[in-house]
């Protein structure tokens, strides 16, 4: 069995008479994105601060590769700390320093790199996080979203192997929230670090997380994949997940996954066993390339535009949709058989090619000034559903039957 990178063993932390963490046991695995969810004020930040050593447990131990970090030798502790970076909930930027100086600070103070090399690394991060234009401004002159990105740049500038994100999307609009989450996921893939997130963004954060850890009443009550969380039966689910997960997904305005399932179950319960319906799966391909060329924010705007277009078109014929993953949408057409759904999809594809592309172009061209070319395609697949068949297997079949319905070739330039 895989050895956890970080493990909490019976960690208890008290402040005064208040027990914040009560015999917490958890495991974080290398190279994954693990997200800690829980109600506000339940000790998620406290938990994170134990990993970086800002707080020490009153009881129990925090292990790094099976060694308690409290008993590491100074050299081992230093070697551990070099690998860990932390992004604070309120950013903790130095307000008397410019964006550049904030990002450069850890390199200037903890390495012997030359000034030129520091400048190269810092500017690379600043460009990646779309902050070039504000590099010499002060944090107080930036919007909340920009400040978040400065904090993200600073957290990543030292190329850490473990990055702790304390509510990285707090106070952002839906597009920015998803752009930040997408950015974290992209850097995690590119740089291969282990990300530990605290987030309330349900379900958006599930799209990028490998593992979910649920903190409830001072204890970890669930550790597993987002899919396993679906099956998890615990008061936590009613109190936390359902309260955090809105009726609609914030970014696209489509049904949240939970409400989509509720609607799906309700509609299906009215059907006879021999009645059929159709499910369509849409995929926006090359999302990462779009993010790289047009930026994360524009990529999220495109997802939103696509979601809105799907909803508008299929909603008119009684369909309902949700975002299935970071770049996939599922639409249920409860009153259509496969042939009729095929015709609706053809209409959609034609309409989308004629008008939808223009919508997406206008989104992308809002910020366009680059000559770089971007190609991407939209795939769609249909599958026939029956009341007694699992939805996931129908979606899988729709995925298998996906084909291209729209293509952009060097039409969007930034």
């Amino acid at each position: 069995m895989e050895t956890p990178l970080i493990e909490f063993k019976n960690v208890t932390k008290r402040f005064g008479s208040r027990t914040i963490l009560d015999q917490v046991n958890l495991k974080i695995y290398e190279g994954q994105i693990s997200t800690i969810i829980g109600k506000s004020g339940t000790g998620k930040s406290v938990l994170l601060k134990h990993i970086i050593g800002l707080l020490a447990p009153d009881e129990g131990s925090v292990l790094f590769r099976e060694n308690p970090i409290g008993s590491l030798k100074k050299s081992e502790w230093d070697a551990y700390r070099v690998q860990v970076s932390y992004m604070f909930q309120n950013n903790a930027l130095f307000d008397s320093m410019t964006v550049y100086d904030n990002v450069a600070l850890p390199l200037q103070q903890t390495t012997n790199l030359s000034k030129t090399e520091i400048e190269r690394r810092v500017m690379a991060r600043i460009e990646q996080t779309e902050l070039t234009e504000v590099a010499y401004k002060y944090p107080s002159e930036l919007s909340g979203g920009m400040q978040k990105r400065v904090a993200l740049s600073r957290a990543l500038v030292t190329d850490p192997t473990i990055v702790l994100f304390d509510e990285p999307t707090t106070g952002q609009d839906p597009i920015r929230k998803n752009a930040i989450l997408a950015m974290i996921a992209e850097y995690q893939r590119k740089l291969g670090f282990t990300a530990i997130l605290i987030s309330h963004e349900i379900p958006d954060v599930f799209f990028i997380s490998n593992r979910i850890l649920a903190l409830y009443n001072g204890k970890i009550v669930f550790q597993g994949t987002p899919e396993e969380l679906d099956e998890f039966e615990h008061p936590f689910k009613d109190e936390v997940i359902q309260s955090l997960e809105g009726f609609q997904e914030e970014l696209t305005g489509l049904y949240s996954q939970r409400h989509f399932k509720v609607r799906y179950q309700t509609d299906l319960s009215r059907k006879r066993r021999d009645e059929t319906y159709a499910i369509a799966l849409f995929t926006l391909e090359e999302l990462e390339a779009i993010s790289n060329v047009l930026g994360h924010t524009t990529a999220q705007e495109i997802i939103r535009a696509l979601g809105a277009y799907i909803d508008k078109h299929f909603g008119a014929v009684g369909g309902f949709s949700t975002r299935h993953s970071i770049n996939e949408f599922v639409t249920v057409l409860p009153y259509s058989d496969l042939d009729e759904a095929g015709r609706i999809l053809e209409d959609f594809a034609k309409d989308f090619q004629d008008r939808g592309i223009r919508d997406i172009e206008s989104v992308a061209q809002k910020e366009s000034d680059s000559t770089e070319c971007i190609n991407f395609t939209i795939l769609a697949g249909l599958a026939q559903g029956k009341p007694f068949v699992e939805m996931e297997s129908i979606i899988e079949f729709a995925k298998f039957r996906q084909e291209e319905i729209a293509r952009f070739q060097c039409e969007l330039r930034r």
Partner: protein
Amino acid sequence: MTTNSHDQDPGENEVTGQPGTFLTRPFAGLGRKVISWVDHMGAATIFFGKACIMIFRPKQIPAIIQQIYYIGAKSITIIMLVGFFTGMVLGLQSYHALVKFGAQGALGTLVALSLVRELGPVLTAIMITARAGSAMTAEIGIQRISEQIDALDTMRIDPLKFLISPRIAAAIISFPLLTALFDLIGILGGFLSGVVLLGVNAGTYFHRVQSSVEMQDVTDGFIKALVFAVIVTTVCCYQGYFTHMRTDSYGAKGVSLSTTSAVVLSCVLILVADYAVTSFLI
């Protein structure tokens, strides 16, 4: 290191305790205050010691120069202004006292020795406390409550090295220089009121200044300035750095109280230390 506010309070038993406890209660309170004071003094001494060691770490020179600019260079105007008027009022008051004994010729001696031995170091330290010390506490306090100091920790940057050491080094360099400036401008202020306005002979004034002030007086003044530099920066930085440990208030209110405490405590300690150092040097 932190105390648990829910730990049993010794005062709790006294209310329901044995007869006569009301007599001991003030002493218990006083005892707690003294213990707390000793605790803070010890912590502040360790804080200063650790920060001092960090002065000699690499990459400190630019930060020290920057702090010399904030603490020293930016205080020049206020020090000159206060020094000038202190010298003038000293000249004015002393002239009217000396003239009763026909000793107005000794005005230069009185002004110069008063400034170099006492008023220069003390008033300079108090002015820097008001201008730079309060700013130090507020800045460090805000950095503490906005988690900037925690951020330094997470970036493996020692906050004592990054925030405190440059300020202590800069104060140790700036205080004696500003004191010298204060003395010089004060003597010129005394010249203006005593010589230009009240008619004391200019040659006599400067001759008395030159003949009465010895190197020992200047050295003693600088020693005081150094002691005050240590006191002011340690108290002001300590108050800001540990503003989150206050039990009486939190956040912005905590920072404002820490700033007030830092200024009041620095001024009191400057005067106490002035007496102590003078009694050793005299």
